[in-house]
């Protein structure tokens, strides 16, 4: 049984869906990356999984199962016992993700009290251990610091400590390094992968940084305009992408000596001007008449792809 099973997840805020029929599954202890540009629905689908989409946003799915439990069938209260404990999330910008009015210790101990029933000295001791675990120097002293007294990298470590406080089986990291300096980025990624291995925790990494993805994930899901367009394993997917969009994404990585970056013509369609057929068709260099129909996600040579004419299908 998969740890996480998402089938046909759709999220809409009135009008066309922002996430459109997403299928995704994740095994315990696995690292999966979801890549795609801004507005492709990666973050929104994960917020839907966390139960953080508010009306007028609407979430529907054929299945949204975590460890065999149907999350959509749970009462809000029962769902909150899972969220923050078994499924935790780290967000993009650590400086705004921490509450400026409370100390680091308060914000970590809050999770320990809520989910593990730890209070007082026991909670404080555990919070110190957590800060030590995320490699914050002088951990005990840092408990009394306020978020504005921390650097971005430190704040992200605190956010990670907060997320692993409930000993989650699934950690969702939403662009965890995007707001940080390059040198710090590598440290934070290393820390996340270290924690993942050590605690046998599944890691779902949302990113648009393919270099980060290549170094960390075993499987990858490429999203475009609210849909998963390709699912595959690494490094195979990067070496032989089946979907034209995956190919374009990889071509956009700057190469030494290159003077112009490759890019697709046009822009990602907004949710009100999506084409009737394949969502990429208007921008796709390989588009054919059949692309006016909407393709389904279908098995390809190495994974799954949403394209009538997948690339790289002949065995090398």
């Amino acid at each position: 049984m998969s740890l996480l099973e998402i089938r046909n997840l759709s999220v809409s805020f009135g009008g066309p869906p922002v996430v459109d029929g997403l299928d995704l599954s994740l095994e315990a202890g696995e690292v999966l990356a979801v890549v795609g540009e801004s507005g492709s629905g990666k973050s929104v689908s994960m917020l839907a999984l966390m139960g953080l989409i508010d009306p007028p946003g609407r979430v529907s799915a054929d299945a949204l199962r975590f460890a065999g439990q149907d999350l959509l069938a749970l009462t809000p209260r029962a769902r909150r016992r899972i969220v923050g404990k078994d499924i935790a999330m780290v967000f993009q910008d650590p400086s705004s993700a921490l509450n400026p009015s409370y100390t680091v210790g308060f914000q970590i101990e809050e999770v320990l009290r809520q989910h593990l029933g730890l209070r007082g000295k026991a909670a404080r001791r555990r919070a110190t251990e957590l800060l030590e675990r995320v490699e914050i120097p002088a951990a005990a002293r840092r408990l009394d610091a306020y978020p504005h007294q921390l650097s971005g990298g430190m704040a992200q470590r605190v956010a990670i400590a907060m997320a692993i406080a409930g000993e989650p089986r699934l950690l969702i990291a939403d662009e965890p390094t995007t707001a940080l300096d390059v040198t710090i980025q590598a440290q934070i990624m290393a820390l996340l992968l270290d924690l993942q291995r050590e605690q046998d925790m599944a890691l779902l990494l949302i990113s648009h940084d393919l270099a980060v993805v290549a170094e960390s994930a075993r499987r990858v899901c490429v999203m475009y305009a609210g849909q998963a367009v390709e699912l595959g394993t690494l490094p195979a997917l990067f070496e032989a992408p089946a979907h034209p969009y995956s190919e374009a994404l990889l071509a956009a990585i700057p190469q030494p000596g290159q003077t112009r970056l490759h890019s697709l013509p046009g822009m990602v369609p907004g949710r009100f001007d999506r084409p009737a057929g394949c969502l990429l068709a208007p921008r796709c260099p390989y588009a054919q008449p059949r692309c006016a129909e909407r393709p389904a996600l279908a098995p390809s040579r190495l994974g799954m792809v949403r394209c009538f004419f997948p690339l790289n299908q002949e065995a090398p």
Partner: protein
Amino acid sequence: MLAFLLRRLGLLLPTFFGVTLLTFALIRLIPGDPVEVMMGERHLDPQAHAEAMQRLGLDQPLHRQYLAYLGQLMRGDLGQSFRSGESVWAEFTTLFPATLELACAALLLAGVLGVLAGVIAALKRDSWFDRVLMGLSLTGYSMPIFWWGLMLQILVSVGLGWTPVSGRIDLLYDIEPHTGFMLVDSLLSEEDGAFLDALRHLILPAIVLGTIPLAVIARMTRSAMLEVLREDYIRTARAKGLSPARVVFVHGLRNALIPVLTVFGLQVGTLLSGAVLTETIFSWPGIGKWLIESIAARDYPVVQNGILLIAALVILVNFTVDLLYGLVNPRIRHAR
């Protein structure tokens, strides 16, 4: 922190100086003089008038009078009332608890109801509750206090007979003033029903005086809350699996209260000026009513120094709010 305190204190001197100049000039711009008011204009004997003016030092040129007034202030002497001969300070301290009691009741009402209403309106944004509340608060804010007070008196006191029309307590009760706060003194007096009677006297004036601060605080809380609820740390708090109540009150309201607190401090000034009208309408024996009567009687020392004391109070409250601000907002505390 010390430098901040000193800087703030340094700003106080010119403020006080300005207040003395203003009140001194304004009260003298009103036609008539204290002697005229006391003796009556009609059969005023010029000889007696001149003597009385001389006795009060009002025959001197204005700049002399002003310097004499400043000199008196420097010695810490607030002077005597022309009317009663009592020292201004003694009268102020006798009457002030009544105003303080009324103001506290009004602020309590405005703070508790305003914050609560603002939070609910923000959570239920664009609902009928939100619309009605915002409409009411605009009305409350724009309503003249004296009209609102009279309307409530007519409706609640005269029409429905639920509350007394005026005063602090029924004449039947003989309450020993221990603290000056009628609610406390009536409890101490152990007279049956005195406390409830004092409470019934307090409720209408408190509502009237609290209306404007209530409206302002509700609006401010709503907008601050709306802003805070969009913050990333609210999403983080929810992602921790905390209950909605904890997210809203512990993580949201705490941050939303920072701007509300500033407004709360500023309302104290509004409150004291509102007290002048409210106390007059409800015959509430506080400093507002005292000042109005003193202006009518051209009781220069009372008007000048009474207003100076109120100004000092407003400045003190805002100063305290500034300090509290640092307490509530760790970013400010550390920046100093």
